[in-house]
């Protein structure tokens, strides 16, 4: 049994590395495939499947910043890293940018451990009362983000259009609706704009790991707001890691490396705490926790203990895997044609969508790509596009 768990754990890390590096292939997709396999093949034990999903999901949160920073191909949780990441890329410091996000991811493991008892003993008590005000909290958070914009009218247009698109997508027979919706809004849109811009080749410096410093003062300046907002946001439906990172960095302004650290930490905390929330509330807050819920209807404390061990070990291993992959990327990125890579990624994303979604999904992909491009070209923040999830959730709670 232990040997089987170690094997699936390693396979999970391998899969998480693959999903993290391959733009468009989300962990939810692999988790969904695994859920269908578990129901068909009885030799796959539920605990092995859960170990695989947890190891894959945590590794994914560590690795998926690498294509975001080097190729500008983000997913919904990493698009915030593009701007500071690209600035450092242009300075030849993309490797340092990746390391700062990895520092954040690694520190997130500590936050997950600290908040686990709070999630287990306090969250179930306060959840019912918070649940009643979820739509109003979402409206408040959306208004706050909109009013902080410089171009309020344009941002409101983007927010309204994304909300309408999300509402229509979740009320029509779109196969795997999140795939075309999110890969269009956050992936393809950015890639098309990159394709249209001038090719920049910057030789990347691979600084020694010990020279990429992050002082204790910077650490606390980043980790405190992350610890305040992320555990709170991670059990509210419709809110993503980008909302938490935006709140944390706006209320406690940070420099570029602090921001990258924040984005990295938030992503991993959200993922880790979604498993704890599944145990304490029985609610699914991520695609991975939904897959675990499908495999094991209820988690025991023993299961949660194993999940926490998997989170910690896979996190530490992923940190070193991430650093080494980033080194390889830094060596080869200046030698390859950025436009060719971008075009290749666009083709891969389109093929993946053609395989996994239907004709209505392709219409969603085209629409969401256009809306994502409009948002970038209008100089409004892409967090407003998350209305595609927030508006349907608000409607669900109110009606």
């Amino acid at each position: 049994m232990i040997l089987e768990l170690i094997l699936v754990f390693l396979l999970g890390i391998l899969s998480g590395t693959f999903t993290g590096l391959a733009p468009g292939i989300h962990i939810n997709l692999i988790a969904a495939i695994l859920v269908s396999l578990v129901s068909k093949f009885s030799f796959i034990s539920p605990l092995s499947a859960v170990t695989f999903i947890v190891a894959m999901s945590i590794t994914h949160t560590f690795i998926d910043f690498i294509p975001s920073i080097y190729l500008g191909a983000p997913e919904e949780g990493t698009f915030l890293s593009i701007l500071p990441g690209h600035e450092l890329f242009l300075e030849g410091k993309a490797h340092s940018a990746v390391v700062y996000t990895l520092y954040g991811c690694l520190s997130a493991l500590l936050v997950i451990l600290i908040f686990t008892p709070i999630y287990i003993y306090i969250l179930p008590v306060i959840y019912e009362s918070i649940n009643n005000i979820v739509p109003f909290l979402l409206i408040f958070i959306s208004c706050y983000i909109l009013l902080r914009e410089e171009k309020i009218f344009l941002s409101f247009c983007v927010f309204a259009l994304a909300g309408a698109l999300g509402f229509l997508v979740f009320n029509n027979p779109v196969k795997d609706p999140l795939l075309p919706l999110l890969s269009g809004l956050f992936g393809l849109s950015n890639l098309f704009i990159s394709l249209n811009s001038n090719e920049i080749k910057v030789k990347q410096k691979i600084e020694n790991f010990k020279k990429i410093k992050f002082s204790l003062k910077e650490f606390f300046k980043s980790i405190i707001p992350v610890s305040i907002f992320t555990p709170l946001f991670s059990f509210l439906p419709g809110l993503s890691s980008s909302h938490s990172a935006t709140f944390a960095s706006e209320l406690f302004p940070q420099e570029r490396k602090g921001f990258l650290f924040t984005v990295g930490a938030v992503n991993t905390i959200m993922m880790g705490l979604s498993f704890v929330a599944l145990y304490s509330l029985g609610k699914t807050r991520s695609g991975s926790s939904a897959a675990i819920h499908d495999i094991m209807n209820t988690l025991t404390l023993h299961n949660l203990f194993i999940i926490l061990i998997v989170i910690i070990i896979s996190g530490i291993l992923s940190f070193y895997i991430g650093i080494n992959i980033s080194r390889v990327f830094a060596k080869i990125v200046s030698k390859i044609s950025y436009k060719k890579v971008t075009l290749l990624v666009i083709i891969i994303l389109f093929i993946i969508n053609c395989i996994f979604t239907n004709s209505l999904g392709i219409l969603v992909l085209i629409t969401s790509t256009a809306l994502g491009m409009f948002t970038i070209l209008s100089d409004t923040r892409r967090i407003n596009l998350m209305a595609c999830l927030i508006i349907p959730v608000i409607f669900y709670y109110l009606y």
Partner: protein
Amino acid sequence: MRRLSFLIAIIGIFSLCFYTFFSVPLEISDQKQIKYLLDNQKVLIKGKVVRENVYEDRIILTLNNNLSLSCEFCIPPYKNNNITAIAIYDNFYKNFEIKELK
């Protein structure tokens, strides 16, 4: 490029709106067809009501072809009546939510 992307987004959203309201429902007649349905699929169901369960906020109609329909606005009784309904398939509960009933 900005205007073009805005235009495409608007056309796409209106196309989805159009699909929502004017798509032709898929006619289904037995349980076996359910596995081919997608969540939120609009369907046309005909049959005779053999069972009627009335709850506080909805009624559940079971037809002679074993299909179950859920309705919030329907006023019973429907038992032994032949009905034609346009409904939306809910993959989570594996049932149909009636939108129009004749």
